[in-house]
């Protein structure tokens, strides 16, 4: 069944809320999932996996004081990466903005790296202080091969990968090492690569326009899991709530 992007966003948001994601991250995770799905990129399986895979989702979205500080390395093992992705991008932007130079972050144990794209595009498209942030998100896994997610100032996205890594990139759960750079202008890292371009911004824009005009078809498996989670935000009805909760006093059919 075709769904509107608004439906996707609403179900994902309520699912994240129902699963216990922190307020605000639930909306960002939902926006991210809808952004990816609109571009025919995998989203729902990773999100549903994170929302159901942690006994304490709130804890899986939080870092201990002192676990990062000024350091440039984060351990993401045990973290709900689809949900916390915006926080990683925010940290990069905050450091770049405050130090007025490119910021770097190395993270291990990253899953579902595509979820870094929507918040990066958000910052690149909007940019604080009119700097126009750009991102180079280099990913490696156990195979020794790399993939790169590039977001240029203005928000254009390019995904570079070899055939050996593209499948893993599009799967949830792979253990990635992230070498991220955020800069206010295009850096050398953005242009120096011999990886083939798998997906370019023009194609993503065309897919997004099509999804907007025609809707999207979510995979029924994760969609059903997300719907079940979304139902957790609802309060069971009682006779009292039926009569009083919405103020159904007096005749409502005259």
């Amino acid at each position, binding site marked *: *069944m*075709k*769904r*509107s*992007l*608004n*439906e996707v966003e609403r179900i994902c948001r309520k699912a994240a809320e129902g699963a216990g994601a*922190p*307020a*605000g*991250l639930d*909306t*960002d995770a939902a926006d991210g999932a809808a952004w990816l799905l609109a571009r025919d990129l995998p989203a729902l399986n990773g999100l549903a996996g994170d929302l159901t895979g942690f006994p304490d989702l*709130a804890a899986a*979205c*939080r*870092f*201990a*004081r002192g676990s*990062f500080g000024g350091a440039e390395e984060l351990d993401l093992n045990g973290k709900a990466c689809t949900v*916390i992705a*915006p*926080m990683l991008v*925010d*940290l990069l*932007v*905050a*450091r770049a*903005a*405050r130090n007025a130079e490119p910021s770097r972050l190395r993270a291990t144990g990253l899953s579902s790296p595509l979820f870094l794209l929507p918040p990066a595009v*958000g*910052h690149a498209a*909007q940019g*604080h202080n009119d700097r126009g942030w750009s991102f180079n998100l280099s990913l490696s896994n156990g195979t020794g091969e790399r993939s790169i997610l590039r977001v240029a100032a203005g928000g254009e996205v390019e995904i570079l990968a070899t055939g050996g890594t593209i499948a893993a990139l599009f799967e949830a759960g792979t253990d990635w090492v992230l070498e991220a750079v955020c800069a206010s202008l295009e850096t050398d890292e953005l242009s120096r690569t011999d990886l083939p371009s798998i997906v370019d911004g023009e194609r993503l824009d065309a897919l997004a326009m099509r999804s*907007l*005009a*025609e*809707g999207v078809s979510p995979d029924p498996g994760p969609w059903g899991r997300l719907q079940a989670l979304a*139902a957790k*935000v*609802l*309060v*069971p*009805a*009682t006779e*009292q*709530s*039926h009569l009083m*909760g*919405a*103020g*159904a*006093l*007096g005749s*409502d*059919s*005259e």
Partner: protein
Amino acid sequence: MTAATASTGEDAPLELRPPDTVMRLARMGSFHQTRISFMRSLLRRIAAENWRLTRARFDLDGDGYGTAVYRVDLPAGCCSLVAFSDELSPDERTDRVIAEKWDATFALVDGEPGDEDIARLRANVPKQEAGHVSAHELVLSRANKSVRLFGHVVDCLANGWQPSMDDIVRVGYLMRTTAVYGNGKFGLSDLENTFAGGLFNRPFEAELFTVYVIREFTLDLVEHIAAARKPDRAVRLAPDRRRALGIGNSTGLGMAPFLTFHPALIHRWMLARETAIARVLALAEAAPEKRGAFLALLARAIDHVREWSTQDARQAARTARLQDELRGLIAELTGGSADLLSGASPWRRLLDKVEAEGSLELQELTLSLMMEPYGELVDDLADQMTDPEQGRLDPAMSLAGLKAAIERNYGWALDIDFNAPEAQHFFWYRSAEKEEPRLGERSAEPGAELETRIGVARDAAALHDLLSTGAWEPDESVAAFLLCEPQWRHMVKRVQLAGRTPYGEIRDNLLADGCLPIDILRCKLSFFGAIKFDPKSDRWTRITMYQGAPGFAELDRENADGWAFPVFTEAGDLHP
């Protein structure tokens, strides 16, 4: 607050009423429709662009059950209202969202639907939330007949006479919509897609256009049933009766979260309204024809308020006082204070006067009336009510900056003692019963742990408390803070947004004992252009839309604006 020139597009800064004055529930609950309300601007657009309505299909049986299609041609293309009219037993008729059947259901479709489309819509639209539509549909709606009026009007027309104006005005409509959905719900076209299609480009424009065409359908429907019942005697509705029949609506608690969850959009609405007010107040003088138009409208407003019928004790008392105040005001402006409007800064002086002496109802109605003669001055603001704000977090902001922003924009919340039970008396929630938004009493009802994020005042105060403990370095970035305290992300974004959207926040505690959701509903409905608010409790209200508006066939540039504050009966109380 003095608005920045850039933020309102003014050539010179205007003095706007401050958010602390405007964004209070009691005042918002006294708003009236204005020239830039969405129904008003829509009808101006329809007339200016000469939209054309065609009844493309009208397959209804003698009882009025069946399918109708209305095609509308615009310069940018065409769309169609598909209407399904079905039999509904009285025990199934309820205005609440938990209903499962309705007298009529509707879809506004992009383009003209073919037979396959009609069949697909017939299988889904009557089910409303339980069905599913496609991105080719822009709006989904349903309506119930007014038990008080629909059958009576049919009887009258079938027997060859017109229903009395008293009867019509007492109710105001033949059908009430009970939901009008857009923006991607149940598979509908996403708002961005709707806007990209070029037919509609303002907030709720597609939804309110749907209601306008539904009104045409209800008028055609009663005439059709009457003619089928007594072909030899039936008459059509007289033009003055057609105009007096608007469309009703029942609105509940869902509108309250909408205002809370869309602060940037609400800011745009409020800013446009306050800018319109400020432009009129800034006028150094009022030309005689403007003064005359205002006084004529003021006199009309007295009769309009007289026809505003409600059984709600609170609103009835307010309406009665408003009538008295309007009578007193016009007596002064045409008598002892006749020079007020002919002197310098007339509208500012008039506002000062009603602020000093009058109720909030009078103050806000006076402001609405002041705008009426000045279309050339304010109508452009209707194009500035969409929301370009993305609300993205500024992660580099310092915690000191964040704390200062709370103190600057949420000072009204910091003095509330949230340890007092009355400060958190209510909780807002979504019921498992069709996700109906509801309000519960925290101490007496289950479900508070699932409350929706309406407690902005409480959360702002709690975040401020946390930032005041000294546990965090003031120079630390918001990004670093949120890695450890992610539960505040929602509130941090809101605080940052509030700095750019000062009219975006209702400056009252929506959890407090004494909070009246009806005030929030009225505010939003006034922006739609609704009139004759008829609260049925403090949690839901009936309203009338498009009453007095010209029908599609007679709408033109000359009459597109003259229908505000309509009056239909002679002076004197309505007959009981």
